[in-house]
Each structure stands twice: as structure tokens, then as C-alpha cells.
């Protein structure tokens, strides 16, 4: 009986986490991209993955701390052969779910150097930050990040700085 109750509770939690994930439709962009990076880690896969992060490696230990307790990490990055493969309307379609009342845009920046615009959104819940979304776009690349759960923005930003974790190559789908 207790086991059944635990099972139901964990299924509900999984369902709740899935419900908090931003619903973006990538089909159009995926068809036009020359390269795609796709990372999709729900709560259980994240927990499994963190077991393989080394406590002896300084950077991996920091990552372990940052992602511990998160309910999901989703990253999609599209590269295109030439500019103009996606439109302002495409970008707006990714902003649309973030117009919901519990989402708040906290920063939008544009770099003249590489032409990249970065928009950062946080999801508010009763305990504080319940999620993060990033839309980053430049002429030949568009990246979408969604993190579900209470994320420490300063620690995450630190990990992405030049002194942060080294590059890791994973499969690029063509």
C-alpha cells in the first residue's frame, strides 16, 4: 500500500515537472538547421547522470551542486548555413509561452560584436525561482535553454564563464 502510494506520488511529481517544462515547437527550425545540439534530461535522467559527475574534479563537483535538485534541463541549439533561415516570427513563437504571468523577463542584451541577442526569463513560484529560460539568437544560430527547478543563477553563470567547465562534444544531429 505504502509502495503504491510512493509510486503514485513519484508519477505525480514527474508529471508536474513535465508540466513545468516550456512547450516549444522546434519542427520548423530543425528542418532548416545544418547542425542541431539536443540535450533533454528529465529529473530521473539528471539524477542518474549526476552519479557520474566526479567529486574529485573541481568543475564537475560545482556542476553537481548546481544541478542537484533540478527537475529537468533542456537545451536545443540550431546552426544554419546562412543568415535568414529563421525569422523574427520564429523567435516570437519561442517568446510566446514566456508571456505567461509566472514568467518574468529579467534581462535582454544585444552584442554588436557577434550580433547575438540573449534574453533571460525566470519562472516565479512560491519558493522563489522555479525555472529558467534563455533565448539566444544570432544570424546563423539560435539556442533555447529551459531549466526546470530552483536554479542558482550566479553559480550557473560562473560555470559558463571562461574559467568554467571545458567544452564537451556530444553528437550533433544533421
Amino acid at each position, binding site marked *: 500500500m505504502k509502495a503504491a502510494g510512493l509510486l503514485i506520488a513519484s508519477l505525480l511529481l514527474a508529471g508536474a515537472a513535465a508540466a513545468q517544462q516550456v512547450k516549444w515547437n522546434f519542427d520548423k527550425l530543425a528542418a532548416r538547421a545544418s547542425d542541431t545540439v539536443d540535450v533533454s534530461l528529465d529529473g530521473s535522467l539528471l539524477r542518474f547522470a549526476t552519479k557520474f559527475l566526479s567529486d574529485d574534479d573541481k568543475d564537475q563537483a560545482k556542476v553537481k551542486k548546481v544541478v542537484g535538485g533540478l527537475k529537468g534541463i533542456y537545451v536545443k541549439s540550431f546552426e544554419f548555413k546562412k543568415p535568414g533561415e529563421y525569422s523574427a516570427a520564429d523567435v516570437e513563437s519561442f517568446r510566446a509561452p514566456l508571456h505567461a504571468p509566472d514568467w518574468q523577463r529579467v534581462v535582454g542584451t544585444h552584442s554588436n560584436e557577434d550580433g547575438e541577442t540573449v534574453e533571460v526569463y525566470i519562472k516565479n513560484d512560491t519558493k522563489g525561482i522555479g525555472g529558467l529560460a534563455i533565448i539566444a539568437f544570432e544570424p546563423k544560430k539560435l539556442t533555447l535553454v529551459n531549466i526546470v527547478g530552483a536554479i542558482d543563477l550566479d553559480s550557473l553563470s560562473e560555470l559558463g564563464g571562461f574559467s568554467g567547465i571545458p567544452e*564537451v*562534444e*556530444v*553528437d*550533433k544531429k*544533421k
Partner: protein
Amino acid sequence: MPRRTPAPAAASGFDFASLVRQHQAMVFSIAWHLLRDRAVAEELAQDVFLSLHQHLGEMESPEHVLYWLRRVTSNRALDEARRRQRRPMVSLESAPEPVAVTPAGDPLLDTSLRKLVAALPEKARAIVVLRYQEDLDPAEIARVLGIPVGTVKSQLQRALALLREKLSRVAGQASDLSLGKE
């Protein structure tokens, strides 16, 4: 202690014949590109599938099957290549290059390139094949071959540099031939 035996292929949930049809090109091509002998490659590919049938009960997912096939095929083909000693172990730099006999059009460039790849030492050859036939990244290649990812990256870099150099020499010879130079 209860008696346990590996689950038979029939109970694994996988349709073995479908798996063979689905993956035969991959398995055969890895073997062929590493061994450069069609008959030997087909035989090795058959052996790999025979082994898969014996281990089908251990397969957890279609992804596991793919990983297993790549790993077993690559390692068996490497073992076979070393066993047959088709060429003595040489450094990357002294790997022989094919002599161009005709100007290179696309199919001939393919053949030249395949021959140049075939002339690479076995490990470098396997890395290049897994990278460009299977589109695996260095971390994935390292896992399939059971070698450090640093080794994969450095060997891949060196192999590409060497292939570029040898290819340009081959192309130069072909151009000389087409211009009637000896």
C-alpha cells in the same frame, strides 16, 4: 542460489531478423572500411550478428543494440586487421599513399580517399571510420573503442592532417598526368 540462464533471443522482445536488416549496412561497412576485403568483411559481419543473437537477451534498448554492434564490430575488425597483418605497423607519417593513375573525378576521389584511409594504422583508421561513417563524436568513439578521448582527438587530428597532405600530393600527381607530365 536459483538457476539463471541468459534470456533466449525469442524472449528478448527484439525481432532479430529486423535487427539484421536494420544494421547490416553499418556492421558490414565498418568491417569493410577497416579490412578492405569484401569477403572477409561479410564473414566478420555475419559472426557479429551471430554473437548478437547469442547476447540478445542482454540488450536493454535499440540504442544498446546499436552501441553493442558498433563496439563489437570495430574491435573484432581491428583484431582481424592486426591478425592478418596486411601491412606492417608504421607511423602515421610513413603510411603509403596510393599512386594516382587517372585524373580524379568524384568517384575516383572517393576511391583514392578510401585507399588512403585504408593505409592508415589500424587505430587511426577505426577512429576515422567511426567519425565519418558513423558520425560519432570523439567521446563516443572513445567509449566504443575503449581508449581515452584525448587519444581519439589527437589521432583524429593527425590522421586528417596526413590525409590532407597525401590527398594533395595524389591530386598533384593526377594533375601532372593529365597535363602529360611524367
